[in-house]
């Protein structure tokens, strides 16, 4: 034990861990502020419970050698895909989508959050086995397949936001796997054409969100209402904010889904630009430490795993922050570690656990 007490702080990336603990604590505080006094007042204590479960999951993942997980990643991935297939076939619709599996005690889990973990492991394993400067066609196809399968299954639920969260992962894998400039250009062109084409496949409410994004003042009370109210909440926070539990926009119910998608706007209202800066800095720190862990990782697989996960966390955070202030359209992407949601929080801590596991085993001679 005494050896562990000496070794642990040296081998656990404390800055990375602390940054995420602070973000989680901020999340619990904001869930409390946005839900107290409403009939959802129990959500903050539930979020605290999820945080505990997430930390436990992270501890378990740190204790397992990530190289074993990489080795078994095709099996883990296959098993997790089966869950998504099961959902698509037999899932029951909750709030319009077959995204959830009901558990006891009113809890439910969203498997697509956890599939991200196995997909990240599989991508890292694929990249570990192809160390050329530019990835082979086979590797590119493997990356596309590894991400494409869950995306299609999640789109079937249907959950556009959930499916979109897989794209940063695929782009990170392609970027670090090595893709030539002409392929990037092709990817952008194909993406633009598919994006334009998929407009016709979108549901009317999804189109509304994009229209609203393009002109928020167009519909004052309709779909643009959310975006406008979020901007007012953020702006009215000023430099120092209105104070915790004192945001009129969020507490009077002007902010939509204020404990999940728009929790950052509530934070911006109550804690001001200082709070916004602090939280953004924490995400910056997470990314920087992710890069550092990847640089120091003992093998290519560990480096790739850490990059995919830390970039995934940061991109989701940046997209959510941009969406809150109206720079990006509302897509249902939540703020990692902060937004209310058990599956999301536990999966995020699972990602953190994998990164810490890579850091823990960075010294070859242990």
């Amino acid at each position, binding site marked *: 034990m005494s050896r562990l007490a000496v070794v642990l702080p040296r081998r656990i990336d404390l800055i990375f861990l602390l940054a995420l603990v602070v973000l989680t604590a901020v999340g619990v505080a904001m869930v409390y502020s946005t839900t107290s*006094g409403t*009939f959802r007042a129990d959500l903050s204590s539930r979020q605290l419970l999820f945080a505990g479960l997430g930390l436990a999951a992270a501890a378990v993942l740190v204790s397992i050698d990530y190289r074993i997980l990489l080795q078994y990643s095709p099996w883990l991935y296959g098993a997790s895909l089966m869950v998504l297939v099961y959902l698509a076939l037999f899932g029951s619709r909750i709030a319009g989508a077959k995204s959830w599996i009901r558990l006891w005690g009113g809890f439910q889990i969203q498997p697509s959050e956890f599939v991200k973990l196995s997909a990240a492991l599989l991508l890292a394993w694929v990249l*570990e*086995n192809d*160390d050329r*400067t530019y990835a082979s066609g086979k590797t590119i196809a493997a990356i596309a397949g590894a991400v494409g399968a869950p995306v299609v299954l999640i789109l079937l639920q249907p959950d556009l936001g959930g499916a979109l969260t897989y794209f940063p992962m695929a782009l990170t894998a392609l*970027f*670090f796997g*090595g893709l030539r400039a002409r392929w990037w250009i092709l990817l952008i062109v194909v993406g633009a054409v598919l994006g334009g084409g998929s407009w016709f496949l979108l549901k009317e409410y999804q189109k509304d969100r994009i229209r609203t994004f393009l002109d928020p003042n167009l519909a*004052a*009370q309709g779909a643009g209402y959310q975006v406008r109210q979020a*901007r*007012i*909440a*953020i*702006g*009215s*926070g*000023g*430099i120092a904010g209105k104070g915790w539990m004192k945001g*009129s*926009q969020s*507490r*009077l*119910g*002007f902010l939509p889904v204020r404990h999940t998608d728009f929790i950052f706007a509530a934070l*911006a*209202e109550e804690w*001001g*630009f200082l709070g*916004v*800066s602090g939280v*953004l800095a924490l995400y*910056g720190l997470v*990314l*920087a430490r992710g*890069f550092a862990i*990847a*640089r120091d990782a*003992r*093998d*290519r697989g560990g*480096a790739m795993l850490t*990059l995919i996960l830390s*970039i995934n966390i*940061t991109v989701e955070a*940046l997209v959510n*922050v*941009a969406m809150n*202030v109206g*720079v990006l359209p509302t897509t249902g992407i939540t703020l990692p570690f902060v937004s209310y949601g058990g599956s999301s929080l536990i999966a995020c801590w699972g990602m953190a656990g994998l990164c810490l596991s890579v850091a823990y085993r960075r010294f070859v001679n242990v």
Partner: protein
Amino acid sequence: MTESAREDRRPVLVRLGRLAIGAWVVFTALFGVYWIEQVLRGDEFARQAENNRERSVPVTAPRGLILDRNGTAMAENEPSFALLLYRRETLDLDGSLQFIAGLLGHSRDDFLKKVERDRTNYDFVPVVLEENLTLAEVGAIQARALEHPEFVVQISKRRIYKNGTVAAHALGQLGEVTSSQLVKLSGRVRPGEAVGQKGVEAAYQDLLAGSSGARTFIIDSYGRETAELERVEPVPGNTLTLTIDLELQQIAEAYFANRVGAAIALDPRTGEILAFVSAPSVDPNLFTRRVSRKEWSEILENPNHPLNDRVLQNLYSPGSAWKPFVAYAILKRGIQPGERVFCSGAATFYGRSFRCHGVHGSVDLPTALQVSCDVYFYTMGKRLGIDELAEAGHAFGFGRLTGIDLSHEKAGIVPSNEWSLSVRKHPWYPGETISAAIGQGPVLVSPLQMARAFAALANTDGALPTPHLFHIGENFRSGERFIYRPPVRESVPFAPGVRETIVEGLWRVVNVPGGTAYASRVAGLDICGKTGSVQVIGQKDTKKAHLLPNELKDHGWFAGFAPRNNPKIVVVVFVEHGEHGSSAAAPLAARLCAAWLQKNRPAVPEAPGIARAGAGPETPPVGAGNGG
């Protein structure tokens, strides 16, 4: 997987460096955006947040008026006050409900139930906690408005039926929309709103409802409205003019003040319903507010079932009022109207004795109708058989829906061999034909069907009109009018002389001594009709009928039209336990005919028992011009 492969990290490190730069750019850009929004434009947004508390209040469209054919209002709207709860203004829901329950002297749980019901709604949509507040309650709530900005009193319009129970069954009533109606009327009605539940109010819900609007306010932190952001005006419902003539309706209602039964008057040429009474009835005003449990159980426990619509939902034996249609079957067979049957007060068929209500001697067809001789119709019915009687009944629209523009109509029963086999699973017994020939046995009709069938007798071309209450719909704003469009016209195929023979008999019923309704004749009106009495108990001594308790007394029918030439009105009166059609039903029919014909032709002498001031400046009836 060699060691060297794992250690070749230069491309990865280069890419890491590039991505780090990209990340810096994105982070800096987001810092910049939030700097602009929060620091540079912070005051501007802070002002908006302070002032900008939007509140959207739905404005229910005024429901369309319902008028009688002369433009007199039967259903209107008056201001009423509703209590709304804005949940998003509520920090302590329990405390708020406790406060309002105490203020209004209600149970907190009732309010909680209403809040629960709206739980799935957005929290900026108010919950309607209470409707029809008194002015004192409104005052009490307004006085505490500063402490409780979550409660708002909304002024809206309430339905009011000026004449209370008059034409209650025709008008129908409003009631809170049910969950199945919410699905059916999706988007056009909000939970808690009132929609037509019966009668015309339900049949023409879409026409009357209009579409609701909304007012969006900016309110300050004390709940005071500071500005109106947006106002979508409601579109009022269309005005609905009914075919009902309020004056005739009231004459009939007055007659039924202490009676149970139904009366219907219609224009035989168009099917326009001039009077529609089902007595007793419930004041529809009762349903525009919350009906107390006591009131509700009183309605349900009333032995006369005031919620039943006796005009089109209750089925009765037609009794002797059925005889004109048997007469049609007789003449259709080619039997001469002059052929005589001897009535000795009773006759034996299939070994059983059937009684007549009198001793009529030798009677031909018109006389048989005039004196309502059962023996004549027993004899003829036996000759024709049940299927020919059924064919005649069907020709006059019995046994199927009349097509009136109200729902829940009943079709009745016209028995035949086929009917017996399919419904009773055994063949028709020929002995049953004897009583079926005088409208007893399984024959069941609604008063409305009777009126429609008599319209076919009244019309020289035998036309069988579709009875309806809708006359004209008029758009409140544009003045655009919708008139009733009758469905495909049906008619009874009268051979030459057949109708005239039956009408001669019906004319004698009222106008020749010995006719069963001679007492109700009105000189110069030429009312033609037929009485009927329906036995409630089987065997009895008719001489002692007046000694029977009321619920065992016979039902009385009178069905007829006037005048004999070019008839303008058909009247059917049915009085439950009225003993005789001649005494209980015919007098009202005579009054209605007299009143209506006097309106059309002011020279007609007044009917007995009706004191009416001259029909001077009233709007001329529209009926005549609306054939089609």
